Every structure is written in structure tokens, then in C-alpha cells.
């Protein structure tokens, strides 16, 4: 193999390295999906892989990865480098989930491995994955009861768990002595390591081919190329201050919480000033790492920027998180942050989107997604003394995506924090492994936000724990405010667009336990999770009546929805459009 010489880059090397970095993260992800053991890893793909450089900067944000996971990983990488300065060696592995060091919520545990070449660290392989349990008082991981970070479970600052290839047994004992289902989770750790093995192998091959000097020069140039692209998109917007906001749903008895974003466009740079109330005495606080990722995501989407993303994406952004100790700049400890990957992540994206919607052309508009935090089903397996915990990201069933100008939203793809990366587990595999039945997983009619382009539909999911000697518990937060619609879009038929959590007793009685709540499903009872639909874009009265007709025929918009939300009258038996009545409704 020919080895390149010199420190200069060229167009061929840049394109080749960009392609290689991308395919490495893809390969890392593939191996984890196939080898992890807990459903949240393997079925739901609640993990992300990335590569960082010699300074801990992000080399590639793979387009299959979860924005909330990867956007904040460089902080962790930098924290590991600072903590272990002078003591980083080939074959080391570092674990970290601490929000104070770029962590997000404690269950999202990052594992990093330095990639050595010619005796120095040139790259880092990094993976962050949702551990099914991270300790704490109850065997589930969305515990509204927890009001500070100490109660959330095991906090792991940057910690070397493998030293020059030798696992540090005492650390492993400490970690796995403090989490439930340690066997499964230790197997999951093997899957995480496998991903980093691949990163190491592939990156070393690249360095052998291009040498360190040229590789570093190329990586720097790749950052600049992305930065130039972002600056160009910002420069295309009129200078000015744009204010936006979004609402974090209230818990029972509380007020909704407003999150504000002011985006100041000046030339080819943007300043984003966030302001939010003092941090909450519950889990819905965002540490700076998660907020950073949310702002980056909101900007990229509103600016219409496609991947590849890397360190350059964030360079033109000057982010003011607001005072330490507020919801969007939580101080950990003591703040609890369990909700942050969904709430307020999605709301922070929405507040940035809302501000930028005033600056960008209509054709770039996108709407908010139906946001729902995770649902966790836990209990004791009948006839055993073993816990089971089943974690369902994004509400346990799947909400709808927001519409975009020219495109209806997607149904059932979850919340925006994952962007359609988190998959729904096959029902047959779930029922094979778990002591519950699923009774339905279907589109909820009228759940998509009204708009010229309709929001995506939500899918309702209903479980029944089987013959449980103990009851199962359900936790979760859910957005009870309809997803953010933009560009004159608004819905009149609101109730179906909002999520709900319903406990159904054995006698069939329904209890809507509301948002941000916990339910207790008795033996013989069921639980119904209803996430919200996505927001719409544009005036729904301008929606093509034929599109409304098709939705009605397919049973995803009701006759009432057609009339109220879209001003379209449809014959209930023939599904023909009543032109005259439609005209009347739309003129009204």
C-alpha cells in the first residue's frame, strides 16, 4: 500500500476521509445493534457512535445517530482528556455519564477509547448508549419521584475502566454492583467495546495510509468546509433579532413552563440566547451538553443543512445558555436530568425553530414533533423473583413527526431527539421475551397536527401484563400541549393531537392519568400509551381537499376532523367531497 507523504490535503483525500469516517460510525452502530442484549440497545437502537479528534472535537456526527447523544459527546471526550492528562495509554477505556462533564442523563453512559498512532492519540472512538438501569431506588429509569441527581442513580465521572487492555476489576465491581440486571448490562458493555474495536482498527488503517500530518490537516479542512456551509446559510437570512419560545408541559397542578430563545443573526454568525426559569425540582432539566446538542439540531434543521455534520456545525453559533441553575442550563448536582434527552431537548429545539421560523423563507419551515418521554414497564416475572424492566423510548408508542413545507409528517417515528432512529420492537419478539401482551399498535385518527402539510400521526399502544403476581409500574412524561405548528397552521380539534396515558382496570374502567405521571396497572388491567402527533405547516384551509379525502377514506382523519381542521365536507358513505359545503366551510 502506498503511503502518502506531507501534511497537505487535497480534494481526493478530503472526499475519501469524509466517506471513511461516515462508514466507520455506520459499522460501529451495526455491530452494536447485532450484539447488544437489552431491548433498548438492540431493538430500539437507543445508542449512538461518533469519532472525536486529538483535541476532543467531533470528527463526524453520523447521520444514523441520535442528535442528543452525539452532539454532546465531545464534551465528555474533552473531560476524559483533562481528567487523565498524561495517563492515557493504548488499550485504555473510559466510562462517563456525569452531566457535569458533558453527560446528559445518567442512563446514557459513554464509553471512549483513544486511537493511538505513532505513540500519540490521534482520534477517539466514542459511543453513548442508554443503560436499562443505572441504580437508584426503583427499578425503572424515569422516576418522577427523584428530585435531585443523587437520587437518580450512579453518577460516573470520567473513569478509566480498562488500563492498557486490562479491565480494572474493582471498578467494574463497583459499577455493576450498583445497577440492576448487571449480567445483561455487562454483555451490553461488550457490544459497546466491539464498536470501539472497530473504530480503532479502521482509523489506524487510515493513518497508515495518509499519515498523521495529512490526516490532521484534512480533518481541520473538513471542519472548515462544514463551517463555511453553515455560515453561508446564516448569511442568507436577514440580520436581526428573532424571538421564539416553546412550552414544557405542566405536571398536574403546575403551570406550563416557557422556554425562550432569541436568535440574533448578524452577518454569517448567529447568537442564541436562551432563558428559562430556575431548574425544576424534578427530572426535566437540561445540562449544558444536552442543550448544546438541541440548539445545534434546531439550527441545522431550520437552516436546511444536511449532514455531514462535525465540529464546524457549531462554530458559527454563539450560545448563551442562560444563568447556571436554570432549566436549560441545569446545575448538576443537584439538578435531576433524567428527562433531558426528550424533555426539554425537544422543547429547546422547538424554541430555536420558533425563533428561526421568523427569519427563514417559508419553503424552509418545519414543524415540531409529537414529544413524549419514555414509558417504562417494570415488574416481577410471574413465577420468579426476577425483575424485568422494559423501556420504550418516545412514549412507549410512537408519536408523529412534524410536517415540512411541501411534505406531510411521518407517522410513528417518535420524538425529534431521535429523529426516527429509534425503532419499534417487533411485537413477536417482545411477546416472546416479556411477560406481557400487546393488544394494539395503531394510528390514532386526527392525531396529526392540521396544516396545509399535515403533521405525522401518532400510534397508540396498549399492553397487558400477564398473570402477574405483582403489578407492573408505568412511568413517563408526556407532552400535553399539541406539537408546535408553524406558518399559519393551527388545529381546532385539539384533543386527539395531545398525548395521554390511560390505565384500564380489569373491569374496563379507563383512568386518564394525564401527563407527567405514573400509573399502577393492576393484575388483569391494561395500559394505553398515546403519544402526540406532529405539528402541521401552513394554513390547513389551503390543504388539497383530495388529500383530506384520502385521509378520511383511510380512517386517519375523521369526518369531524376534515370539517373542523380543514374545512372539507365529505360524504360519509361515498367519500365524495361536497364542493359547495367545503367552499362554505373554508370561506367562514
Amino acid at each position, binding site marked *: 500500500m502506498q503511503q502518502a507523504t506531507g501534511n497537505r490535503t487535497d480534494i481526493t483525500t478530503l472526499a475519501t476521509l469524509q466517506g471513511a469516517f461516515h462508514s466507520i460510525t455506520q459499522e460501529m452502530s451495526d455491530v452494536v445493534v447485532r450484539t*447488544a442484549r437489552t431491548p433498548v440497545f438492540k431493538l430500539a437502537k437507543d445508542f449512538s457512535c461518533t469519532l472525536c479528534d486529538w483535541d476532543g472535537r467531533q470528527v463526524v456526527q453520523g447521520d444514523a445517530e441520535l442528535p442528543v447523544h452525539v452532539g454532546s459527546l465531545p464534551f465528555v471526550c474533552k473531560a476524559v482528556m483533562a481528567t487523565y492528562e498524561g495517563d492515557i495509554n493504548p488499550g485504555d477505556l473510559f466510562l462517563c455519564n456525569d452531566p457535569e462533564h458533558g453527560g446528559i442523563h445518567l442512563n446514557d453512559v459513554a464509553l471512549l477509547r483513544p486511537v493511538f498512532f505513532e505513540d500519540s492519540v490521534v482520534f477517539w472512538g466514542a459511543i453513548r448508549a442508554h443503560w436499562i438501569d443505572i441504580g437508584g431506588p426503583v427499578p425503572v429509569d424515569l422516576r418522577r419521584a427523584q428530585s435531585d441527581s443523587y437520587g437518580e442513580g450512579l453518577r460516573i465521572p470520567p473513569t478509566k475502566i480498562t488500563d492498557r487492555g486490562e479491565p480494572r476489576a474493582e471498578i467494574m465491581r463497583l459499577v455493576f454492583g450498583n445497577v440492576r440486571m448487571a449480567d445483561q448490562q455487562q454483555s451490553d458493555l461488550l457490544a459497546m467495546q466491539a464498536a470501539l474495536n472497530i473504530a480503532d482498527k479502521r482509523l489506524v488503517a487510515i493513518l497508515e495510509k495518509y499519515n498523521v500530518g495529512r490526516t490532521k490537516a484534512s480533518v481541520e479542512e473538513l471542519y472548515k468546509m462544514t463551517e463555511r*456551509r453553515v455560515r453561508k446559510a446564516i448569511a442568507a437570512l436577514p440580520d436581526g433579532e428573532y424571538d421564539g419560545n416553546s412550552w414544557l408541559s405542566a405536571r398536574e397542578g403546575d403551570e406550563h413552563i416557557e422556554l425562550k430563545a432569541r436568535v440574533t443573526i448578524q452577518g454569517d454568525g448567529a447568537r442564541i440566547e436562551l432563558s428559562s426559569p430556575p431548574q425544576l425540582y424534578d427530572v426535566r432539566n437540561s445540562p449544558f451538553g444536552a442543550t448544546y446538542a438541541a440548539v445545534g439540531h434546531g439550527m441545522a434543521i431550520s437552516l436546511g443543512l444536511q449532514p455531514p455534520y462535525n465540529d464546524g456545525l457549531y462554530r458559527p453559533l454563539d450560545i448563551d445558555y442562560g444563568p447556571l441553575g436554570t432549566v436549560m442550563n441545569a446545575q448538576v448536582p443537584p439538578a435531576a436530568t433524567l428527562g433531558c434527552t426528550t424533555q426539554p431537548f425537544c422543547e429547546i429545539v422547538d424554541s430555536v425553530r420558533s425563533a428561526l421560523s421568523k427569519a427563514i423563507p417559508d419553503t424552509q419551515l418545519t414543524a415540531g414533533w409529537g414529544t413524549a418521554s419514555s414509558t417504562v414497564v417494570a415488574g416481577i416475572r410471574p413465577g420468579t423473583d426476577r425483575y424485568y424492566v422494559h423501556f420504550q423510548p418516545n412514549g412507549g408508542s410512537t408519536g408523529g*413527526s412534524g410536517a415540512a413545507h411541501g411534505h406531510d409528517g411521518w407517522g410513528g417515528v417518535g420524538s425529534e431527539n431521535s429523529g426516527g432512529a429509534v425503532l419499534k420492537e417487533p*411485537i413477536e*419478539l417482545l411477546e416472546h421475551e416479556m411477560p406481557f*401482551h400487546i393488544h*394494539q*399498535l395503531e394510528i390514532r385518527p386526527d392525531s396529526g397536527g392540521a396544516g396545509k402539510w399535515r403533521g405525522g400521526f401518532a400510534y397508540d399502544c396498549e399492553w397487558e401484563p400477564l398473570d402477574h403476581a405483582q403489578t407492573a409500574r408505568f412511568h413517563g412524561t408526556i407532552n400535553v400541549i399539541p406539537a408546535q405548528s408553524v406558518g399559519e397552521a393551527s388545529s381546532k380539534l385539539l384533543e386527539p393531537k395531545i398525548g395521554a396515558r390511560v390505565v384500564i382496570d380489569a373491569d374496563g374502567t379507563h383512568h386518564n392519568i394525564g401527563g407527567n405521571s405514573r400509573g399502577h396497572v393492576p393484575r388483569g388491567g391494561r395500559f394505553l400509551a398515546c403519544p402526540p402527533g406532529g405539528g402541521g405547516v401552513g394554513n390547513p384551509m389551503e390543504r388539497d381537499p383530495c388529500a383530506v379525502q384520502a385521509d378520511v377514506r383511510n380512517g386517519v382523519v375523521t369526518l369531524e376532523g376534515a370539517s373542523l381542521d380543514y374545512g372539507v365536507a365529505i360524504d360519509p358513505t361515498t367519500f365524495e367531497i361536497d364542493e359547495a359545503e367545503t367552499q362554505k366551510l373554508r370561506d367562514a
Partner: protein
Amino acid sequence: MSYRLGIDIGGTFTDFVLLSENGDLVVAKTPSNPEDLKSVILAGLEQLAEEVSRPVADLVKDVDIIVHGTTIATNALIQGRLAKAGMICTKGFRDVLELREGLKEERYNYRVDPPAPLVPRHLRLAVDERIIASGAIHQPLDERDVRAAAETFRAEGVEAVAVALLWSVINPSHELRVGEILREELPGVPVFLSSEVAPNIREYPRFSTTALCAALGPLLSQYTDRVETTLREIGYANAVRYIQCNGGTTSGSLLKACPALALDSGPAAGPAAGLFFGKMFGYSDVISMDMGGTSLDVSLVHNGHIETSTNVDVHRYRLSVPKVVVNTLGAGGGSIGWIDDSGMLRMGPRSAEAYPGPACYDRGGELPTVTDANVALGYFSADHLLGGRMAINSSLAHQAISTNLAEPLSVPEIEAARAMYTIVNENMANEVRRISTERGYDVRDFAFVAGGGCSPAHAVSVAAALDVETVIVPRAASVLCAFGAAITDVRHDHHRTYMASLSGCDLSIINNAFEEMTAAAAQELTEEGFPDTQRDLRRTMDIRYDGEIGELTIPIDSGPVDAAMLETIRTAFDQAHERIYTFADPNSGCQIMSLGLAAIGRRTDSIDHIQHGDSGDQSFPDAVMTTRTAWFDENSAEIPVYDGARVKPGEIAPGPAVVEEATTTIVVPPGWDIRLDPRHVWVITRAPA
């Protein structure tokens, strides 16, 4: 003299390969015309008949078997020309098909729509019934719901029905009963049961496969009828077989029973051809690269076995039956070079297609393509392609590269052309890595077989980048898949879902299942006329560590499965896991997920070589047509251009050089040697140091 005939109908051309029992090979190529199948087939046969100097009517009588690969199913899917299909679903689960497990392929692209569901929601009708994981009936089937659904389907004019019920893989009784009722209520409407067409656990892939069957069924059924009628009219009376997505052939009637198998028919024959040519040189590990005008298909054969996988997407629709692993990349001769909004040079996936084609074709195309780069670098002639049959204008290639790439990037034109060539090769190398390295194979053990008109210009450079030692370019390179069709084996796949821990499984269930599958396979192969000596029964188990999502398909030996064999299987699984995923976990429990049996009827026993037209009689120096200035890396050199047709078998020449053949151009970089094997195959190997 008896023959076998391979016909591969592609989007642009239809390829014909006529292979005699002695290995004499004749090829033909005609433009495709889906409207007039008969004249296309006749035109091809006439070309072949002329080559062998016999009348068509006479020739077809000596053909024993015609094997046909077709893009009809794939094209229908891409273009949405699908039957109006209905679906019967378990109550509560009518949206499984539309949810697609919640997948949105491109996270950050908010301006892309999901694929249209194969069955619209108003034709996905729920029936009250429920079977649970154990196979027990939790809720009996309400037959009134089925009859009401049939009524709706009749009123709507539904042309085919998919029956997709939960857990039918464990207990198919409800699906069977629904099928009976539908056939009674809707005579003449084909009904596909998920437990029959794709008996694999995981509802979405199974339902999707069943829906594909219903959506493609009527079209495919008409098509196979039309093919067979046409061939009868021409005077052909023997067997007609079709290439399936598993790489083997099957009969029209079995294809009608599972029309989804017709997806990727055509490209699926590539690996069989690759293996055939690899074996000539002692390689049973082969990577086939078939690069045409718009795309590259890469497939892999390991240890003489064609790689298949399940639960993959075909044009965004999930398929759960075994399918040859063919990775497709938007890299062909017509792939366009462009600069993205960050200033990065990119190649493809957009293509200039056959029309207007590359800039140098002088048909109005102004964008620089891979072919234009090959012209600019001196690999292709400045004034013709296809051995002189097609004139080109090289100044248009230079101009397109200069204007669109070199000037905006502020680099010399030749550097832009080199970058185009290298980037395409890197993209190809990444695709080869995906199919080999990422699946745990050492790519250096493999030989490349380069097919399609465009790969021979790139394959050796890709081989160099991956440390591959041997590149094989058959003279029949441009009709590789038709050749594959002519020589490939019959293959029928059988599956049983059986989930149990490997250590605690019930051997009698396993052995019974294998016996049943073996009996069914034996009957099929008997019907197709394969004696015992030409049968291969490959048994497999899909296994995973407790709790893993991905199972690995582990081949198992013949004979009764007993405790000792389970131990062997366990070891093989641990080794495969380590090879593919970098680690094994011998302390973990293992779970069997399903049992498989691939029944192969071998056709290729008698042919191990081919004779393809006349060979030249000149040494390489005598066969020089001209010399050209060509660029390799940062240097240019005056290199010889050989006329492939004039070269004498056994001759060898060093690179850098170019060999022009009637349908392709082979680029031999410095450090590589090319020789013509007497069996009409070019072999390019690394020059001895």
C-alpha cells in the same frame, strides 16, 4: 448438441447467453422493450442463431433449459405499478405495514416522504382473532369479519390479498382458515399467507413480504405466462426457469406462489457467474462487481457459497426471505461529478443515464461523468468506445470537467479528473468493505470478478486499494448476469420457526422439522429432474446469544441432530460471532430462532470451462493498436493500447496498459500484469516484486 440459454432482461438491454454442453459460449445483446417481449426475444435468438449458423427454429429445439432473469418485479416496485392489493390483519395491528418499525431512514432530511404502503389503509382490514407466543389461541377467529372483509375487497375490485396475522409462524391455523374463506368468497383472486410465503418470526418483515407477494403477484403471473407463451410460439418446448432473489432458479409455478422471490432477479445471478470464473483459477472466495451505466452491484461468495441474508430492504420495502447479498451503489459510467455546498467533490449517485449520457457522448449531456474522467485520463480512447462501434468527442469530456469541477475548485483539469476517478474507486472500495470486511471476511483472500461494461476500468485500482491480488475479467463480462442465469443452480429455501435454548432444545422437534423440510425439498427436486447425485441439501440454524437481536446463520452437517452435533454447532456459532462482531461470549446461553434448509439442484457439473468465439494469434506487442498518454497517480506516461481480440491466449503484458475489448476497456495500472487465459478470461495480477 444441447444448449442452455440465459436471458437477462435489464432496463436498457436484454442480454442473451447460449452455452453448449461443451462449453461453447455465444452472447447477444438487444435493446429492451417491455411492450414487445416477443420481438426482443426473437431478435436475440436471431443473433445467436446467426453466430452458430443455424435457423432459430432449429436452434431452440436443442435448448434444454431457458433461465430467465428479469427486472420486471423490481421495476414495478420502483415505479409503483402494483396490483390493487388487500390485507387481512389481526385486530389492533392493521398499521404494522405502514409503521415500518418506526424507521425514518434519513434522520436529518425533513423533506423526504415515506414509501407509499403496499396496501392502502382502507384495504387493510382487521379481523378479530389472536394467537399468542406459545401458539395457543387467545381469541378465536371471527369468520364473520373475514367474510365482511371479502365483501369489501370484492366491492373495491381487489386483485390479490395478503393475510398477515400475528404468531402465524407458530400456529398457522387462523391464516389457513382465512385463506380458505377468501378463496371461497373471491374465486380467482390470489391469496398469500404470511405463514406460507415467509414463515419467519418478526411481524413487519413477514407482513411486508406477504404484501409484496400480493402487490406483485398479478403482474408477475401475467408476465410468466407471457414469457412461456412467447417461447412456445417460437417453438421452444422445454423447461423455463426464473432467477430468484436467493440466487437460484425456480419454476414459474413456484414463483407465482411467492412472487416476492422475483425481486432482484437478474443481479442475483451475478455471484453464481463470479463463482464460476473464480473456480477456474482456484478461488472459491469471490467478490463480483457489476458496474453498468448508473450503478454498481457488489456481491460475495465465500467458500463456494453464495451469501444470502434475510430482513433486508429492497427499494425501501422489507423482504424477509433469503436474498443474495447484493450491495448497490450509485456508481456507474454515467455517475455525475458535482461539488456540494461545502465545496466537496462528490461522485454520484445521480447519473446522466443512457440519455443524454456522459458529456463525451455528444448527446447534449454537459455534466462530467465517470466515463468523461476515464477519457480525460487517457484510459478510454479520445474518439470511440465499444471497440470502435461508438464515436465520442473527448473535447466535451475535458470541457465538462474543466467548467463544472476544475475551475470552481481551482485545480488543474487533470487533477479534477484524477480526483473523480479516485473518489469513485474509493466509493467502490467502501462498498466492497461493507460486504466483506464488515462481515468479518479478509478481503485479501478474495478474487474480484469484474462484470458489466464499466468495472474493468476500475476494478484493478479498487483491488490495489484493498490489497486484493487477482482481478478476473471474463470476455463475457458485459453479460455477466445472463451468464450466471445460464449456469446457476436450482434453489428452494425452506424455513421453520423454532425458538428454544440451544442447550435445552427438543431434538425430536428439530429432527422432525428437518425431515419434513428434506422430504418437501426432495419432492421438488425430483419434479425438476435432479438425481440424488446432483442434489445439495444445506441445513442451517439461526442462532443468537440469549437476548441478542441479530441471529447468525450457522451451517450444520447432515445426519440426525444430537448432543454432540449441538456442541459442534455451539463452537461454530462462537467462532462466527467472534469473526463477524469481534468477540465471542462462551459463557452466555444461546438461543435457536429458526431452522433452514436450502435445497440445491446442481446444473453445472458438466461444464467447467468455456469456449467463447475465436482467439487472436498475436503477441501483445503485435496487438498494439496505438499508444496514449494516460495518467496514473501524479504521473503521466505513454502507454500501449492493445486490441484484445488479436491477443493470443497465454500471452502476458505488464501495466501500465489498456486493453480494448468489444464491450469493455480494461485499465491495467503500473505494478500489475495482464494475461489472457486460454479459457477466454483476462486475468490481472500484481506483478512479482
